[in-house]
């Protein structure tokens, strides 16, 4: 189980996307894991052949535990391990490389539970027009796999033949049409079939509301999990980190003029928004103020080699995700924009990848779209700084002894006073300002 965030201690393996005998390559997406924050596609670190799946779908395991054993394919033909997961079922352990060393295989199969359905899979099912409830799961405990959904989509659609009246009665009486055998022409389900079933399930003949037979989606709870996770992290931050806050108002006139010019040359799909400019400038500025780029670990500051810029994304369903733009200081504004678009789309679709969730070296909170003036942020431990942006808006501004109207934005910094002082923080804000005055150089 990879660590998909500094605060992650365990994760639920929602779905295996590979099975025993499948060849896998480094970087292949092999499983879907649900963390307290999100559902993440896990990429494989090695190349080889899957010899054994050590963790069942639906199982919650700690970070660091081995999920599967890869080998060179010599025992690929071996039957899938039984529930006991005994090592001798999968050939020689010595010959096999383990994705993660030292983790014991699970000894018992988990109790049957409602079939988990990851958001990824649910999304795929919706894309393909497959009703997951009607698909037979071939995973452990009848869990649906991606293969099941895709196979169901490619099969000629088996459609129940149900008379309109029977369908209406079934809905009224809460009878599941899938459980009925039709006695009408060509096996069609008629009203009498529904009435007979209704009598069995409701001896009183009383109509009861339809019962949802759909499994409770595995991701139904992430909001509260995520809330808990945010709560724990922010509490730690407020308790352990002595914050200092600085703000600086920046004239964005030049930046926006440059952006509008640039947008004329770009396709509609690639056009820039001010956030791209702000993030690109921040990443460059952070490179020149390394005292703010890194982590506070074991009572000491460890500077980070790269600027991995965390981006706080608020979800429509509530809660936050903080994917990172790795090596953000080396990206152009255009590239930064593209990365923002990708991350936002993947995060909102619940499809973030493990590589999106690397530990940022510094984080940006852009609340400009929320219309606030400035952000006095709370640092994500173990990082030591958080840069905030308020809304860009036209305000009165003194320029060359005259009062003018300029597009302004307030940039803020929350700094960890253990790692840096206000002078260092001020340098960062001034650098951001300076870079935004020469946007063409970004």
């Amino acid at each position, binding site marked *: 189980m990879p660590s998909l965030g500094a605060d992650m201690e365990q994760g639920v393996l929602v779905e295996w996307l590979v099975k025993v005998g499948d060849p896998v390559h480094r970087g292949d997406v092999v499983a879907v894991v649900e963390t307290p924050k999100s559902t993440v596609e896990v990429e494989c670190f090695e190349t080889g052949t899957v010899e054994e799946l050590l963790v069942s779908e639906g199982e919650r395991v700690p970070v660091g535990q081995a999920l599967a054993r890869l080998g060179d394919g010599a025992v690929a033909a071996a039957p899938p391990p039984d529930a006991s997961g005994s090592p001798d079922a999968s050939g020689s352990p010595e010959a096999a490389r383990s994705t993660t060393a030292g983790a014991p295989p699970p000894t018992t199969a988990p109790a049957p539970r409602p079939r988990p359905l990851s958001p990824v899979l649910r999304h795929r099912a919706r894309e393909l027009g497959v009703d997951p409830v009607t698909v037979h799961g071939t995973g452990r405990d009848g869990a649906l796999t991606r293969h099941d959904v895709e196979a169901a989509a490619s099969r000629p659609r088996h459609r129940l033949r149900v*008379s*309109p*009246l029977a369908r*209406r009665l079934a809905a009224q009486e809460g009878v599941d049409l899938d459980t009925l055998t039709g*006695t*009408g*022409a060509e096996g069609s389900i008629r*009203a*009498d079939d529904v009435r007979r079933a209704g009598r069995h399930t409701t001896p009183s003949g009383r109509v009861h509301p339809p019962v949802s037979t759909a499994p409770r989606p595995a991701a139904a709870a992430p909001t509260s999990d995520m809330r808990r996770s945010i709560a724990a992290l922010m509490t730690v931050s407020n308790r352990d980190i002595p914050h200092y806050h600085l703000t600086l108002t920046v004239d964005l006139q030049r930046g926006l003029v440059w952006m509008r010019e640039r947008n004329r040359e770009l396709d509609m799909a690639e056009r820039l928004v001010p956030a791209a400019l702000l993030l690109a400038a921040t990443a460059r500025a952070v490179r020149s103020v390394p005292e703010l780029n890194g982590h506070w670990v074991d009572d000491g500051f460890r500077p980070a080699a790269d600027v991995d810029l965390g981006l706080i994304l608020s979800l429509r369903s509530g809660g936050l995700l903080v994917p990172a733009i790795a090596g953000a200081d080396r990206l152009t504004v255009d590239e930064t924009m593209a990365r923002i678009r990708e991350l936002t789309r993947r995060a909102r679709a619940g499809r973030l990848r493990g590589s999106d969730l690397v530990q940022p070296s510094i984080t940006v909170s852009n609340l400009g779209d929320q219309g606030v003036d400035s952000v006095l942020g709370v640092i994500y431990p173990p990082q030591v700084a958080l840069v905030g942006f308020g809304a860009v808006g036209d305000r009165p501004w003194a320029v060359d002894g005259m009062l003018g109207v300029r597009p302004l934005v307030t940039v803020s910094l929350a700094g960890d006073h253990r790692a840096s002082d206000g002078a260092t923080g001020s340098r960062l804000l001034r650098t951001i300002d300076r870079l935004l005055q020469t946007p063409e150089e970004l």
Partner: protein
Amino acid sequence: MSRHPVTTAARTEAPVTTTYREALREAHRDALRSDPRVFLLGEDVGRYGGSFAVSLGLLEEFGEERVRDTPLSESAFTGAGIGAALRGLRPIVEIMTVNFSLLALDQIVNNAATLRHMSGGQLSVPLVIRMTTGAGRQLAAQHSHSLEGWYASIPGIRVLAPATLEDARGMLAPALADPDPVVIFEHGSLYNLSGTLPVDPVAVDISTAAVRRSGTDVTLIAYAGGLGKALEAADALATEGISAEVIDLRVLRPLDDATITASVSRTHRAVVVDEAWRTGSLAAEVVARIVEQAFYELDAPVERVCGAEVPVPYPHHLEEAALPQVVDVVAAAHRAVGARA
């Protein structure tokens, strides 16, 4: 009771035994007696007494002014009827069969049906056109077709299909009272239908369908020559424990959607019996309306029992084979009702 005279219940005077043909004749006699504007015209309606003997004796009783023989010229005498109606008379035009009415189709479709609308309501055509329809009497293709469904698609006219003695007796009067053209189809196989009628005519409407038999499992929808077959099929189904409701459409235009929908909503299954060709038939229209208005009540596809799509054959056995028969209606009802629990 006046809306749906289903039975000839005993009244103050003993009912008289009569036939469909005699009931029609009595209706004409009443009309000619009660309204001097009414007159009958058509081929052989006078001296011959009508091709199907409906007007037998009327010439002698009412004279040549009121019962007028015409040449074999459907377009001309139908047009004459339209002109007379426009000028305030109440003509009854008899056309020998619906096949021959095609010669008068221009007058009916382009004049009778349109003039009220084209004159902005200034003109009325209070005309009644009667004609024979249907097969079953070995009269071959040119005398046997059921084209009433075509007429039922024409806005501007009302289309009736009396299938009972009561309707044969009662529909003419309200048809003559209608300020717009009314076309009455008499199925050739019904003229000898016999039964009893009260001495005093029972008033009937010309706007609704009638439930001729109540049932709970399937609705058989028929009209004219098909009604008797549907009722016979309902008898046969009853012996198997299948309760069939039988609707007599009576009025082919405008269709009485409410009666049809209400019945199908009770029985959840329907069989439409129509002697005409299936394609583009009145039966097709009825099925479409059921699906439009009662889709969620249906427990089975709506069945149709229609005439074979051939010109009606002359040989008896082939003619029988080409027409809907009672066994066909029973079989369709079985398909609709399905395996019984």
